[in-house]
């Protein structure tokens, strides 16, 4: 039975993990997302559902624990924030290469380096282009509310197992730390051992005598086989791009100017839309839900229809804006606005940027 | 018999009222003030200044290093 609660984004993520039937969480504390493991430890999911929660010695250990458990067919996740996510890049590349399903969250803070612990969206490139090595992609979901922090855990696991791919919930300090009401989805039971063996024949759960052994690896010393493997990965990414794009259009029907934004910036931009409309400016919001796959097709399609410009609004020096540019292929004006380094822009600033960079510019 | 007298000066605005100095004093000189400083902390002061022997114990354990100690041989 679903349940209405007031929760922090980080807590909702944690609670949703239990409800989504996760088998394990491995993590290492870091602001602004330590509530995830704190909530889990306080909730004793080992008593509630049998879910394992382990505080690892480091982010690297955590992501490799995820690798092991995921390779054994379990629903597992980790979470961290920017510097910790950078440390996980090798592990994520391995998970992508070995085609393991898993979920992880980055509650982004301002960088680079140790930076600040305040919200930021400057890990977009790392998330969508691959911060690790090699040609791999991951599905990136960008929640803009506490509700989505919960729902995307369930959806993220579904996608992860559907495509055997790492799924990243790219959040930020605002969404992680804020409280909102959240309608928690009904608990989904954890799979039984037998169900796992049946559903995931690739998983290393101990080979039945006389059957083929299962191997989880990202290695192939034969370049031809490695190329084939890469082709397979690319085909999967193509399929995902065709099928799994998600976005939300707000006040776009008659809009002449479009804010493109995700996560907390999308909420701010939504208020900027209101302010703009109040001033008679026909603004709309293209809210990205999946950052990979990027809704390039829809965006390109829109730009034929009377749109005079796109303003990419992100708390970074300009990262997502590149994907907007690539999507519209020069057929419309595209500019970037965003504050960064831990500063969250205001709706007023966003509107002003629209007026200056797009309308007036 | 040589007698010593000491005195401490607490940097009131930097004192955090943690009380760590209090048990460190062999002669129970220090107490926290009823008043608070700008940060809202009850700060340390010499409640019994006569008793101070200038041993520096309080200053040595003060985490914030806000105590200066003086001593004279009488």
């Amino acid at each position: 039975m679903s349940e209405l609660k007031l929760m922090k984004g980080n807590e909702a993520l944690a609670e949703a993990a239990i409800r989504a039937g996760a088998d394990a969480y491995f993590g290492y504390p870091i602001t602004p997302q330590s509530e995830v493991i704190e909530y889990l430890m306080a909730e004793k999911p080992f008593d509630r559902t049998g879910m394992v929660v382990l505080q690892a010695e480091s982010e690297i250990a955590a992501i490799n624990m995820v690798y092991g458990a995921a390779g054994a067919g379990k629903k597992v996740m980790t979470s961290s924030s920017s510097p910790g996510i950078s440390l996980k890049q090798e592990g994520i590349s391995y998970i992508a290469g070995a085609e393991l399903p898993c979920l992880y969250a980055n509650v982004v803070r301002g960088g680079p380096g140790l930076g600040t612990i305040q919200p930021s969206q400057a890990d977009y490139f790392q998330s969508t282009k691959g911060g690790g090595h090699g040609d791999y992609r991951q599905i990136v979901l960008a929640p803009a509310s506490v509700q989505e922090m919960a729902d995307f855990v369930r959806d993220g696991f579904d996608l992860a197992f559907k495509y055997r791919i790492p799924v990243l919930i790219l959040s930020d300090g605002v969404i992680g730390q804020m409280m909102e009401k959240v309608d928690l989805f009904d608990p989904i039971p954890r799979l039984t051992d037998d169900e796992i063996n049946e559903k995931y024949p690739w998983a290393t759960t101990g080979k039945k005598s006389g059957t083929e052994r299962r191997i989880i690896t990202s290695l192939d010393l034969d370049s031809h086989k490695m190329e084939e493997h890469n082709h397979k990965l690319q085909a999967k990414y193509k399929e995902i791009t065709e099928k799994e794009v998600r976005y939300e259009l707000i006040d776009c029907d008659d809009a002449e100017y479009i804010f493109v934004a995700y996560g907390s910036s999308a909420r701010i931009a939504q208020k900027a839309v209101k302010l703009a409309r109040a001033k008679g400016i026909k603004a709309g919001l293209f809210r990205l839900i999946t950052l990979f796959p990027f809704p390039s097709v829809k965006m390109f399609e829109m730009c034929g229809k009377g749109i005079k410009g796109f303003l990419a609004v992100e708390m970074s020096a300009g990262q997502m804006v590149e994907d907007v540019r690539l999507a519209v292929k020069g057929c419309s004006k595209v500019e970037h606005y965003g504050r960064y380094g831990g500063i969250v822009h205001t709706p007023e600033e966003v509107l002003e940027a629209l007026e200056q960079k797009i309308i007036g510019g | 018999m040589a007698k010593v007298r000491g005195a401490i000066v607490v940097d009131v605005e930097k004192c955090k009222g943690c009380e760590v100095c209090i048990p460190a004093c062999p002669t129970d000189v220090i107490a926290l003030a009823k008043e608070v400083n700008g940060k809202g902390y009850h700060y340390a002061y010499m409640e019994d200044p006569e008793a101070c022997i200038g041993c520096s114990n309080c200053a040595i354990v003060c985490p914030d290093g806000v105590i200066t100690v003086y001593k004279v041989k009488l």
Partner: protein
Amino acid sequence: MTEELIIAGFGGQGVLSMGKILAYSGIMQDQEVSWMPSYGPEMRGGTANVTVIVSDERISSPILTIFDSAIILNQQSMDKFESGVRPGGTLLYDPNGITRHPERKDINIFQVEAARLAAEMGNTKIFNMVVLGAYLKIKPVVKMENVIRGLKKSLPERYHKLIPLNEDAINMGLKNVIAVQELQ
């Protein structure tokens, strides 16, 4: 109706939980709410503040720089947030420990001596509930019954016996709020 509020003071005053109870109360009457704390090392014994929005509509940005109302509980917060109150908006504060009182002429200003009242009630922990009561007197954004339901929701079961005490504190606040400056 949309109320955009900041509550600011220092750690230990119950700033965050006051905001949480208010937000829960909003939920109880089917409103949209958001609660956004400032976080970080400055919280450690230092300042703590939270912005709360209660609204009939979907809330866009939870981050505020301008507020309909401000509840201010120490001098540092006064210095930081007085200027952020929207012209015509409301500032409520506890004068205890305040050395520089608000100076704005274009806002409504109220006082509640919550620290003193809580001490008089024999429990400094209900300080924040006294403040909440005062605030609700000025800005009845949520009904009292919903505040009680909100309290129930936000307190763990084992603390429910404290709800009457909290209710008393809220009432104490309701009764003791003083208008310092009312526009019009």
